[in-house]
Each structure stands twice: as structure tokens, then as C-alpha cells.
């Protein structure tokens, strides 16, 4: 605070019209972490440092990318800013190469492995989908079995097509009140392992989109006992690694590999991700890298990779503090939303020691059926009437992601808007579909069906046939129907119901999702 009477110059940054409530020039410098955390190896960000050094050298580029630090594309430079384009560089000695990392990318990966307590880590630039592909394709040979829950992300089913693997589904538990699919019960996993002793791996959603976690430690024990790998889709669980109040992380549980969407709740750029390796596959790192390279670009974006490096540093140094705040915000939102009446912002109290073993407290999953609106309808009202975008809504729930970037004021807005929606649009809860999960009937593997000769039929006429492609609502992107599964009346009803409620359907060649390729008889 300034003492009265003391004349001081008005700093130039205050002479600017200020947007977003932050003073220009404030909060724009990266702190000196090495001074703040002396001796902590995580205070380094080797890739970020190398790319910054490259920029400062003003090297004359006679290499790609052709925009040449933005000069060749003034429109793009005006949009993204010069700073951004000068670090959109190609792989070269100074900044290493993701296909075969030996210097700064490698160092950054090793730091990431340490931060996540993994044996090794790979930077991924084609999303967590590519990390999932890496896990599955490096664990299965054609024809091999993979034990998994059916409520997986499309990237898992797609990887099974590419790997020509055979899915063995464990029925996820379904919560009767909420209608949502849960995790896997260890007893069911044990039973499936006994029936399919030659399966190569067990894949676990950790957490599901809704924040539901299985007993990962126990499932890992069962799988390892049977000589199977444990692959974890940890797309929505980046933060598990940084807080003791959250479910066990994949690496802590002893899993063999985990796909971690640093971009989802961690704060890195969209499309950047991590593949973590556990002790069990440390010696296979070379082969796994080879598999990843089968489909990985040779021009990995340095914007994405630097964002991974900086995000890893931030989370390693401050993750605890950050996620404490996130959990507080989410808990506050839940308690306020539950006081409105009607909505059920559920949490730990729904855990059952089995298929709903743990809950991710940062997920603000809200059950809406008792206000007479489908989750997708609340999602649409929030967006259209209140300019609030939540992650997704399905039939009975919507999900708001609370993450590193959230502030108390916007939580208040969400709560206030939900009060309004209940008052203005709430109805009697009749006629709403109760269940988010339709049990699949598997007739052939996804690859067999996908590559089979097919007929194109109107969806409504496809009953009784075997689907050759997937149909899903996006998000969450969990196939309602996957290749190789029987098209039943229940599935068709579910799809048409979701369509009528306004869900975005996708997955088929037909972009309106009115026609479906089915396996020719």
C-alpha cells in the first residue's frame, strides 16, 4: 500500500485499457522456479529452455516450417502472435526429435516420468487416443484378447480394430439411481480372467468420465497374478498423481501403462498427452516407442511438447496446492447445488467398495433426472441461455470439469444458472429414460466386422444385423454400438432417444447417423 502524500509515477501498463481484470504486464512472466525450489530437479524445463534459446539465437531458417517464423503468413501471425510462431519449429539438433529423442525431449520425458512416479514416459502429440493406441498395440498381437469394460472411449475400440485384438467385456456395474455405468468389480474381473486365461491385458477406465474409479490396486493384483498387463485409460485422471485426497494413480497402483491427458485437467495445450510406463514394462520401452512411431508424425509440434514440459513442471512443483483448490471449488459447488433441490451433485457417498470404489472429487457430475430434464437438456440450456459450456450432458447427468484454470466467480455463475433452470424449465420427472448403459451382444471382433463386406441400411431397418461401425454421442465418445455387436431394438431406441434429446451423434460413415454399415450376411 502506498502512503498518502507520496507522489509516484503511474506505471505505463496502467495506462492501457485492461481486459479480464488483470493488469497488463502482471502475471506474464514465468517465475524463476530454480530459485524458488533450489535443488529440486523438477524446477527445470529442458525442452522449454532449449526452444527459448533457439528463439533468442535468431537463426536463419532454411528449413521447414515454410511460414518462416510467421513472416510468410501474416494472417496467422496476427491471429496467434509472433511469439507463438517463432517457436513453431521443426525438429533439429538444438531441440531434439520426438521420433528418436536423445537430448532435451528425452530429458523432459525423464522428468515427466519422475513427476508421475513412472518408470518411463513418452510425450504424445496426437492426443491421449495415440497413447491408448500405443498401450494396446504394444500389448496385443493380432487375435490376442484384451479384457476391458464396455464403457470405454472410442479410441480403445479403434485401437482394437488396428491391433486386430479380441475384446472380452466385463460388464460394468450400473448405478441404479443414477443410471450410469460404473467401474469394474474385482470379482467380475477375476471371473473373466479365469474364463480367458490367455488374455494379454486388462484395460481399466480410471476414472470414467463421471469420476467413478474401480479398485485399481486389486484389479492390478489379479491381472498380474495371471500374468496379464494392466493398461489404464487415465485420460481424466492427470490430477490423481498430485493429491493424496484423490483416487490412487495408475502408477501408484502398479499398473503397467497409463494414458494421461495432460491437456484435459492438467492445463497443457489441447492434443498434448503422456504415455506412462510402469516398472513392469520398463525393459520394453524400446519396442513400445517403435509401436508409437508406427503412426506418430515425424513433425511433432513444439508448441504441444513445450506445453507438456511447462505443465509437468508446474504440476510437479505446485500440483498439490492447485488441486487442493480445485477440490475445494468442486466440493463447494456440490454442496450449493445439492441445496437447490432436485439436482444430485453426487460424490463419495455413492461409493460402494466394489464397482464404484472411489470417486474423483474434482468431477462435478450432476444428476438431473429428478428435475424432469435430461442432462443434455440442462447442458444445452446452460450454453444457449446462460453462455456456460459444460463438458457434456447425457440422458441423466451433466458433467462440469473443474480444473487448474477455474475461479470462484464462475462457480457462482454455474450455481446461479442451475437455480434459474430449475425454476424456469424444471418439470415432473416422467418419461425420461433411466439407463445410460445398453448391454452389448458381441458377435465378432471389431476388426472382423469393420473390415467385412457390408450392407448400408437405414438404422431403423438394421435390427438383428451386426454393426460394422460405431455409433456414439460425442462427448463422451463411448460407443453405444461398436463394430461386431448386434443391433438390437434396445440399442436403436437408445440412439433415437439420445438424438431426440439433442445429443450429437457420430461414428458412422453417414454423417447424419441415419444409415449404418452392417456385416453382409
Amino acid at each position, binding site marked *: *500500500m*502506498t502512503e*498518502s*502524500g*507520496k*507522489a*509516484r*509515477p*503511474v506505471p505505463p501498463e*496502467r*495506462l*492501457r*485499457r*485492461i*481486459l*479480464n*481484470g488483470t*493488469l497488463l504486464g*502482471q502475471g506474464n512472466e514465468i517465475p524463476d522456479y530454480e530459485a524458488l525450489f533450489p535443488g529440486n530437479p523438477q524446477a527445470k524445463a529442458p525442452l522449454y529452455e532449449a526452444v527459448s534459446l533457439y528463439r533468442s539465437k535468431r537463426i536463419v531458417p532454411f528449413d521447414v516450417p515454410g511460414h518462416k517464423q510467421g513472416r510468410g503468413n501474416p494472417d496467422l501471425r496476427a491471429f496467434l502472435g509472433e511469439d507463438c510462431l517463432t517457436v513453431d519449429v521443426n525438429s533439429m539438433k538444438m531441440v531434439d526429435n520426438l521420433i528418436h529423442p536423445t537430448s532435451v525431449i528425452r530429458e523432459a520425458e525423464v522428468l515427466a516420468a519422475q513427476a508421475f512416479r513412472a518408470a518411463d514416459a513418452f510425450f504424445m502429440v496426437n492426443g491421449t487416443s495415440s497413447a491408448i493406441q500405443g498401450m494396446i498395440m504394444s500389448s496385443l498381437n493380432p487375435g490376442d484378447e484384451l479384457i476391458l469394460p464396455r464403457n470405454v472411449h472410442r479410441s480403445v475400440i479403434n485401437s482394437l480394430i488396428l491391433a486386430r485384438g479380441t475384446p472380452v467385456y466385463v460388464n460394468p456395474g450400473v448405478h441404479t439411481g443414477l443410471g450410469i455405468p460404473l467401474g469394474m468389480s474385482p470379482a467380475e474381473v477375476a471371473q473373466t480372467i479365469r474364463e480367458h486365461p490367455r488374455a494379454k491385458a486388462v484395460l481399466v477406465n480410471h476414472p470414467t468420465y463421471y469420476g467413478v474409479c474401480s479398485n485399481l490396486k486389486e484389479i492390478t493384483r489379479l491381472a498380474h497374478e495371471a500374468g496379464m498387463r494392466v493398461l489404464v485409460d487415465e485420460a481424466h485422471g492427470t490430477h490423481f498423481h498430485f493429491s493424496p485426497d484423490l483416487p490412487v494413480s495408475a502408477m501408484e497402483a502398479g499398473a503397467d501403462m497409463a494414458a494421461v491427458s495432460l491437456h484435459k485437467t492438467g492445463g497443457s495445450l489441447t492434443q498434448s498427452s503422456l504415455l506412462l510406463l510402469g516398472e513392469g514394462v520398463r525393459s520394453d520401452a524400446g519396442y513400445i516407442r517403435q509401436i508409437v512411431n508406427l503412426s506418430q508424425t515425424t513433425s511433432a509440434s513444439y508448441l504441444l511438447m513445450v506445453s507438456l514440459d511447462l505443465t509437468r513442471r508446474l504440476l510437479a512443483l505446485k500440483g498439490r496446492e492447485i488441486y487442493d483448490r480445485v477440490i475445494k471449488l468442486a466440493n463447494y459447488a456440490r454442496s450449493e447445488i445439492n441445496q437447490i433441490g432436485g439436482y444430485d451433485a453426487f460424490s463419495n457417498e455413492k461409493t460402494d467398495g466394489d464397482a464404484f470404489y472411489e470417486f474423483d472429487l474434482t468431477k462435478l457430475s450432476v444428476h438431473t433426472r429428478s428435475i424432469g430434464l435430461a442432462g443434455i437438456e440442462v447442458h444445452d440450456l446452460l450454453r444457449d*441461455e*446462460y*453462455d456456460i459450456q459444460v463438458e457434456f450432458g447425457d440422458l441423466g447427468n451433466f458433467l462440469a470439469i473443474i480444473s487448474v484454470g477455474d475461479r*470462484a*466467480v*464462475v462457480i*457462482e*455463475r454455474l*450455481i*446461479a*444458472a442451475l*437455480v*434459474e433452470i430449475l*425454476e*424456469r424449465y424444471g418439470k415432473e420427472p416422467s418419461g425420461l429414460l433411466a439407463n445410460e448403459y445398453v448391454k452389448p451382444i458381441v458377435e465378432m471382433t471389431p476388426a472382423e466386422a469393420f473390415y467385412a463386406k457390408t450392407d448400408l441400411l437405414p438404422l431403423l431397418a438394421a435390427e438383428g444385423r451386426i454393426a460394422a461401425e460405431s455409433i456414439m454421442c460425442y462427448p463422451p465418445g463411448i460407443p453405444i454400438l461398436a463394430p461386431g455387436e448386434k443391433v438390437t431394438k434396445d440399442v436403436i431406441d437408445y440412439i433415437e432417444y439420445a438424438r431426440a434429446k439433442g445429443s450429437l451423434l457420430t461414428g458412422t460413415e453417414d454423417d447424419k447417423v441415419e444409415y449404418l454399415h452392417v456385416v453382409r450376411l
Partner: protein
Amino acid sequence: MAKELWFAEYHDDNTRLGMRVTRELVAMQSEFQAIEIFETPTFGRVLTLDGLVMLTEKDEFIYHDMIIHVPMAVHPKVQNVLLIGGGDGGSLRELCRYPEIEQIDMVEIDSEVVNQCRRFLPQVAAAYDDPRLNLIFADGLKFVRHNTDKYDLIVIDSTDPFGPGESLFTKEFYGNCHRALRADGILVNQHESPYYPADAEEARLIYQRLTATFPLVRVYQAHIPCYPSGHWLFGFASKRWDPLQDFDAERWNARGLYTRYYNTDLHTGCFQLPTYVKELLESGVE
């Protein structure tokens, strides 16, 4: 010789208002925003939040007259008031001139604004000791959500729609205010300016959201020299009272309140808007 010191506020990307600064009294970052108070030869002391002028000693009477006396001359009996924002104290000062008001709940997010204004702008922050005041430091949106059918008048004396005041311009906030008002309650709000495009867009959105929430919405105007373009709007959103039909000039004049800007002739005139402003506001409403 000492260099001249100038404060400038950009009113759009290419236009700014400059004031020569003779002395800076406060320059601090609170939990929510940057707060400054400095002295100028023309406008006297000036309060800025996040670099934007909130008030000056010389012309603050205009804003505070218009946001308080217009609704007070319409509603026949205001007893319970909710004032959201207004940490400088000017709106509170004007409210306290009405003896029939029994309680004023004032919800300001930033206690530092109140502290600094009490210290350096005592003529504005003049009524903080009034016994009817219930001062609460909290988020306005959160506070209002917990109240139903309680207030005769809600005054939204906020900063701009970015920064700490952003939630006070949203449809959910207006909806929650509607619920907090009694069946004949009135809401008045700082409604931005119709002139520079960025401000005008906000004004259009505010009007759109208010009309989606209240059965009766009118906009009125004042001339405030220190604000962008000098032309400022206020919103009058009401469940029952019409600001012109239910306005009783005699009743208000009988109070004998002296106001340097507001008068009962101006009351009628300030609701008569320029054509371009009418077009702007109507363009956002189906």
C-alpha cells in the same frame, strides 16, 4: 523540472481520455483488482479500478443522483434495499437521504475499495456509519441467490462486465435478483455506454438479458464527463411500477431534497433516448 504525469484511459483501441495527475494517493493490488486514487487539477480526486475510472470528485454527483433518485421517485415506499457493488459509498450516501428506508444490505466484493474510499474520498464514502447499513463483503451473485421476495429496490452499482464484476451482468444474476425482489420491486443497474462499439455491445446484451427476465424494462441516460463518450445509460427493470406512469413528481419534490443533477423535469426527459440508442437496444430483443 519534474516531468508531467498523465493518466490515460483507453476508451477504445484508438481513443483515450487523459488527465494530468498531480499526486498519487493509492496504488495497490487487492485480492480482486488494482485500486488507484490520484489527484487531478480538473476532476479532483479520481478512483480507478483495474485502470478504469470509476468516479471523480467533480462529477460523481451525476452518476449517484441518477442511479438512486430515479427509482426512489417511482416506488411509493422503499423499505428494504439491496445495493450490490458501489464500494465508493456514493450510492449509499444518496440512499441514506430517505428516512423511510429501514435497511440497506450492501454487498461489495472488495473491502479494500471501501477502506481506501473512506480514507481518501470521505465526501463520497460519507454514509458508512448509518445504522441502517448492513455491509457484507461477498460475491453479489452468491449473496442474492439466497434471498427470496425480500427487497423493494436492488441497485447494481458495478464495475464493467470483465474483472470482478463480470457475474453482475449475466442472465442468471438478473434472474436471481428477480426472485429476491418483492412483487412490486425495482432493479436499477449501471448499463454501460451506447457509443463505443465494445461498450455498446455490452449495453445491448444487458438490455437483452433484462428484458428476458423482467416484464418492464426501460433505459435512461445521463451525461457523465469522465466516462467513455460521456454518454451513460442506466437500466430500470421492474415487476410493476412504470418509471413514467407511476412517477409522482409532487411527492418527490415535497421531500425537499436538493440534487445538483436530478430534478423531476429531467426524470421524464432522461427516458427519451436517441434513435441510434433505441435501435441498438431493440436489435438484441426478439
